[in-house]
């Protein structure tokens, strides 16, 4: 089922929204919180997935963009008492600007150099928050108060409202990303990812396309940061560590790089798996330290296994299964699960891959 047309996308979004609404009513407050968490991650991961999967640029610093969005939201809510949707829009705009700055700096960087610069960016942003405790609350951070609006009535649980708001925001972002994906902008990204020299020869402004991709993905992360502010109620540097940036990237990859459903699978994994495993561990009587670390080990093992066995991620695996069952020859030329690269000489059987490009003779 392809999402080529806008009506189809909106239809799917409405269905998902309805499902989420029903789930949040049926499930308890903790589950509502998890729904909100998942929605938040989906927003950030989808943006990152687009950046890395579609435009071929890796970022290890998206936690930093989330921090920008979160702190902007927190400051606006705290000091100016703005309503959330207004703060959200401003947070998105501010993070977009940050994304443009980073995008410009990163436009000429490739691979590991880009990874290094973005990694350091993520670390440096939180350092700024700590260095100016007057404005940003230092290590303790800023507390955010978020209440239900009056029109839902006095008995509407806060957690359910948080889940609904987050899910709504996430769905809007996903629909917009899907629109982009099928547009000329998305096609340009894929062209730049696959071969930027050829794309340039085709008249595509490569630098502009790459910066645009950064702006879009940073904005998504910023929006996710705004959600984090209202869902967790606390914006502090400890929430935006390297671990977060890495978790976002790995969620994008495990879910299926460049695919929007993949963002959902990856987010489900990073929210639900650790809790599940810790529960099992502690129910078997293991200490809390061990219990806290087992999901970490499990997470790493899953990462490694997915990469070795099924690098196209969960979405790729699903598509493979569907194709096998329904025999549809679905060419995923639009949803590339892994960026095309120049393969390096390997240590085993086929070192001649570079020569493959030159053709046989």
């Amino acid at each position, binding site marked *: 089922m392809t999402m080529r047309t806008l009506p189809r996308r909106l239809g799917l979004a409405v269905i998902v929204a309805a499902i989420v609404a029903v789930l949040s009513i049926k499930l308890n407050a903790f589950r509502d919180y998890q729904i909100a968490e998942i929605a938040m991650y989906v927003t950030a991961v989808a943006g990152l997935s687009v950046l890395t999967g579609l435009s071929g640029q*890796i970022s290890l610093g998206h936690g930093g963009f989330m921090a920008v969005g979160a702190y902007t939201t927190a400051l606006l809510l705290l000091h100016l008492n703005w309503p959330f949707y207004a703060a959200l829009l401003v947070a998105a705009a501010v993070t977009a600007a940050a994304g443009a700055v980073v995008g410009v700096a990163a436009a000429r960087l490739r691979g590991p150099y880009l990874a290094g610069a973005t990694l350091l960016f993520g670390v440096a942003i939180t350092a700024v928050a700590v260095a100016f405790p007057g404005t940003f609350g230092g290590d303790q951070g800023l507390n955010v108060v978020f209440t239900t609006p009056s029109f839902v009535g006095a008995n509407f649980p806060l957690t359910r409202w948080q889940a609904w708001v987050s899910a709504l925001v996430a769905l809007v972002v996903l629909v917009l990303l899907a629109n982009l994906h099928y547009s000329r902008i998305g096609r340009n990204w894929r062209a730049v990812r696959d071969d930027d020299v050829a794309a340039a020869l085709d008249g595509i402004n490569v630098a502009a396309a790459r910066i645009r991709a950064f702006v879009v993905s940073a904005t998504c992360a910023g929006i996710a940061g705004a959600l984090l502010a209202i869902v967790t109620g606390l914006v502090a540097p400890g929430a935006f560590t390297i671990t977060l940036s890495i978790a976002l990237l*790995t969620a994008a990859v495990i879910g299926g790089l460049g695919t929007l459903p993949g963002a959902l699978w990856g987010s489900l994994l990073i929210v639900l798996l650790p809790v599940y495993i810790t529960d099992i561990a502690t129910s078997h009587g293991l200490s809390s330290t061990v219990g806290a670390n087992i999901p970490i080990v499990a997470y790493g093992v899953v990462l490694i296994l997915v990469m070795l066995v099924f690098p196209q991620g969960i979405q790729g695996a699903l598509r493979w299964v569907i194709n096998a069952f329904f025999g549809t020859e679905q060419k995923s030329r639009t949803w590339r699960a892994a960026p095309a690269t120049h393969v390096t000489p390997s240590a085993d059987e086929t*070192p001649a891959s570079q020569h493959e490009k030159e053709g046989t003779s």
Partner: protein
Amino acid sequence: MVEFLQLTLSGIVFGLVYAAIALSLVLIWRGTRLLNFAQGGMAMFTTYVAIEVIYRTHSYWVGFAVALAAGLVLGAACELTVVRPTLNKPPLNSVIVTIGLLTVLEGLAGILYGGQYRSFPTAFSITGLRVGGTALGVSRSDVFVAAAVLVATLVLAVTFRYTSAGLRMRAAAFNATIARLSGIRVARVLTVGWALAGLLGALAGVLVTPSTFLYPNSMDIIFIYGFTAAVLGGLDSAVGAVVGGLVLGVALSYAGGYVGGSVGADLTSLVALGILVTVLMIRPDGLFAGSRMRRV
């Protein structure tokens, strides 16, 4: 003036630790064209092994030696099990795999050794040295750190330049196809490269941990700075790694010292970012990148 000297010297000491990590990254990069994000994690793990040995044997040097040996073994083991299968695939796969490896190592350390901060001993005294009446800002231990890294670097450089094994590694790194056609067992060479990188990382770990204390994430920031140093120098250049490390170490030392108070200390990462971005905007492949610019 005295402060300048102190900051410079201590900057050099830390800079050499970053250089050691940077060198290990360059070693792996040149051999396998991938960035080993687990390098810090591997160093952390071998340092834990060292501290356990030191507790049991009450000897720093035995622990030191075991750490280095463990580094060799861990490096080779990682290459053989986890990295080898990813070499034919897109580079992003190996990046993720090494991140997975990092996660596993940190989690394992937490399970085996617990999360609390531990102190790590030094072989030499940590009292500041004085020349005449002025405090130099570095101790005997610091001098040992610098010397150890310099000696290791020198030994590696000599090995690469003048031995058959070194020639094999260079040939395999420059052109694996030609190397294989000449009979060089490139696969074996790669494993050795990873083992050596593991050794360097282990060395950096035991040298720096007395300052950072030992906990599962203790090498994260050291790795980031080592990574920055490697990228600054250009990932293909061993000389670049050392220069990058020294430049970064000294610059961060000045930033921390001169910009005063906690603001300065917290902003070191911002300074590092500033340096990195400035250098990369002028030379996107690092300071010492040759004319052969490989696009990844």
